[in-house]
């Protein structure tokens, strides 16, 4: 919606195609507050944050196609053809000059992490349970064990407790929580819900419905037979990470990044197919929606300059790589002669670290970081001035030292 607004406000004709009945995506089921602190400078709930954009969108002549699933995208030179199906519009075919991919992400599920045991009912991803509870008004279970300490899992621990169910514990395989600190404090510690770090679920038990899970501590990365215990529960929620939803991108043969599971994009957020852009969780998984909006707005403005065929101010672009202690850096190129904002995710927990951007011994940018967590995305801006130091044909490396 943010990208659509930015493009439409510049005077271009925009169609927004959405699979669900209402625009807003996952925000509509995230009824908790804490959204918008950066972008709107106030604390909003998910539906309120979505409403801000729905209101902005409603004032613009954007063609909104709801309940329409895009199944195919053809890129041949200048024109892109997008094909979708819908119970309202039938077969929808759109011919466009540019496409913005904003399909979001999907939750990893039991199959992705391979938990042993039987296959009873009652194993949900945390986001599915959230939707059932907050949108459809259905209770997924009574006694819940949460696997993985991602934010949605933590939020669901509180939500389930508030609707009168009991959350028996959160089992996290890593030695540190994957969710934000404020969620650990307000969703677990407030209710005395135990967080088992460096533990893993070795078995899900139950015939028709989940009856319990076996939990074992990890010793040197291997589940140990000593110190294991069982939690009797009827429901298992999985909050074990998100994967960008890129079936459409792959089918259009757009180059993908192995680090983010999203498309490879340049400094304008343009993919390997000219005129196809990407933003939000489809590009890489964000932890704050405020950053999604900001990225989408930037993407929208890039689309506008693409459509206007603005003469590029930059002279050349160099590839970007994620060095020591970083999982990934987005976008994947840095242009000389302009400002670029980079988003990256750390692979380590550190206090007082330094982020260094360099080409060999030539340091382009350095920044002191007070706290580095894999759960919290890092933002770095390479200013126009700094970008002039970037030399041609040499990879720009980002690293945390």
């Amino acid at each position, binding site marked *: 919606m943010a990208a659509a607004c930015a493009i439409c406000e510049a005077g271009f004709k925009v169609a927004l195609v959405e699979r669900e009945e209402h625009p807003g995506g996952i925000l509509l089921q995230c009824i908790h507050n804490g959204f918008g602190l950066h972008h709107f400078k106030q604390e909003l709930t998910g*539906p309120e944050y979505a409403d801000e954009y729905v209101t902005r969108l409603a004032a613009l002549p954007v063609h909104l196609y709801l309940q329409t699933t895009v199944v195919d995208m053809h890129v041949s030179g200048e024109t892109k053809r997008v094909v979708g199906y819908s119970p309202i519009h039938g077969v929808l075919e759109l011919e466009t000059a540019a496409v913005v991919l904003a399909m979001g992400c999907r939750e990893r599920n039991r199959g992705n992490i391979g938990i042993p045991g039987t296959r009873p009912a009652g194993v949900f991803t945390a986001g599915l349970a959230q939707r059932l509870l*907050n949108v459809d008004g259905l209770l997924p279970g009574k006694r819940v064990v949460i696997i993985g300490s991602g934010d949605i899992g933590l939020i669901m621990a509180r939500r389930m407790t508030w609707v009168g169910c009991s959350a028996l514990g959160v089992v996290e395989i890593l030695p540190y929580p994957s969710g934000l600190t404020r969620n650990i404090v307000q969703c677990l510690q407030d209710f005395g819900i135990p967080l088992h770090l460096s533990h893993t679920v070795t078995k899900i038990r139950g015939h028709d419905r989940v009856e319990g899970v076996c939990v074992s501590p990890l010793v040197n990365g291997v589940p140990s037979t000593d110190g294991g215990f069982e939690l009797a529960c009827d429901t298992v929620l999985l909050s074990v990470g998100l994967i960008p939803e890129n079936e459409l991108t792959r089918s259009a043969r757009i180059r993908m990044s192995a680090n983010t599971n999203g498309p490879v994009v340049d400094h304008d957020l343009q993919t390997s197919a000219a005129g196809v852009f990407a933003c939000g969780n489809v590009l890489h998984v964000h932890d704050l929606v405020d950053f999604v909006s900001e990225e989408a707005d930037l993407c929208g403005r890039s689309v506008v300059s693409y459509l206007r065929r603005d003469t590029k101010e930059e002279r050349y672009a160099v590839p970007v790589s994620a060095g020591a202690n970083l999982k990934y850096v987005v976008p994947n190129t840095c242009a000389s002669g302009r400002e670029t904002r980079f988003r990256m995710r750390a692979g380590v927990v550190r206090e007082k670290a330094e982020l260094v951007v360099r080409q060999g011994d030539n340091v382009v940018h350095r920044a002191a970081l007070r706290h580095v967590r894999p759960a919290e995305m890092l933002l770095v801006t390479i200013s126009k001035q700094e970008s002039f130091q970037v030399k041609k044909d040499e990879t720009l490396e980002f690293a945390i030292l």
Partner: protein
Amino acid sequence: MEMICIACPNGCHLDVAQTARGLVITGNKCPKGEAYGRQEATDPRRVVTAVVRACSTEWPCIPVKTDAPLPKQMVPALLAALNTLLVQVPVKRGDPVLRDFEGTGISVVCTRTIPPVKLVKPGAVP
């Protein structure tokens, strides 16, 4: 009393102690931690978000929130009260569903606009 400050990602471990000179907060790296520790130790409050039942076939429930942080010990009572509600649609974002809960001056408001039900004639193309 030990607690973790949530004012920023630093997550300082605070130690709040009751002394003759009043509350003494240690372990914070900034004034926000001091304020957080004091608030949590004397009057912990939470914004409560929940869903209430809607009187509609199309919309099973409506998301709501308290318009200000509620004293923590009152949260279960508020949730119990919200469970008994049945709200008529349409509603607009910000419409109250429960006013001035137990004299706190805190109301519960809708966080989503639920439009009037669209009447579709049988066989009509929407």
